[in-house]
């Protein structure tokens, strides 16, 4: 799944570690999500969306075939 996590994180001038700490997950998790190699669980996706004050659909997109 594609996402705009990296863009939103950088717009807040947060490091990956800072974002990981805010979400309660590991930095590796953030790295993998931003690279599109790990799809977050639904609860985690909702937490991410709430953190950036966005809807999930504004952050995550299905991969184009």
């Amino acid at each position, binding site marked *: 799944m594609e996402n705009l996590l990296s863009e939103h994180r950088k717009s807040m001038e947060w490091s990956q570690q800072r974002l990981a700490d805010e979400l309660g*997950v590991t930095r590796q998790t953030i790295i993998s999500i931003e690279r599109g190699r790990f799809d977050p669980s639904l609860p985690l996706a909702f937490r991410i969306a709430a953190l950036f004050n966005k809807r999930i659909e504004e952050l995550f997109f299905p991969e184009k075939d």
Partner: protein
Amino acid sequence: MSEVKTRTKWGRAKFGNRQIPAMRIAIPCGLVLGTILSLVAVWNGIAGPNKSLGGTVFAVCLTIPATMLVWALVVDRSSLQGAVDLPEQSIESQWYQQAAAGTQIDVILAAILGVLALSIFPSGNNADPKLILGGVIAISIASVAIRYQLLRRKT
């Protein structure tokens, strides 16, 4: 998110509303457990002809793992420095689950090959069960470790 200032290197154990440093429980319990296990070894005659020396060696060797076992059982992980709040939602958890699932297949395959080998070779009837079980454990540990690293590198 838990307050960072309440987290320590070895963490705390929670008993109701009280919190006690986990090592304060683990070390004495580990000493007792190590001593009990060494006494069992001496009583069963596996500590060697010199019971005092053998018992001491067993106690020394078993106390540290016994201490860490008690620590792992009593520690509240939210009080540990560096522990994330939601490990089950981190990618490492997915790696471990995938690695463990693959390890199940590896162990079954190894067991099949082992049974085949023991059936074919003449010395198979004298195989030591302790070695076989130890081999199963070793294969399990190696399999999950290798699979975990491969998943980590792939991601």
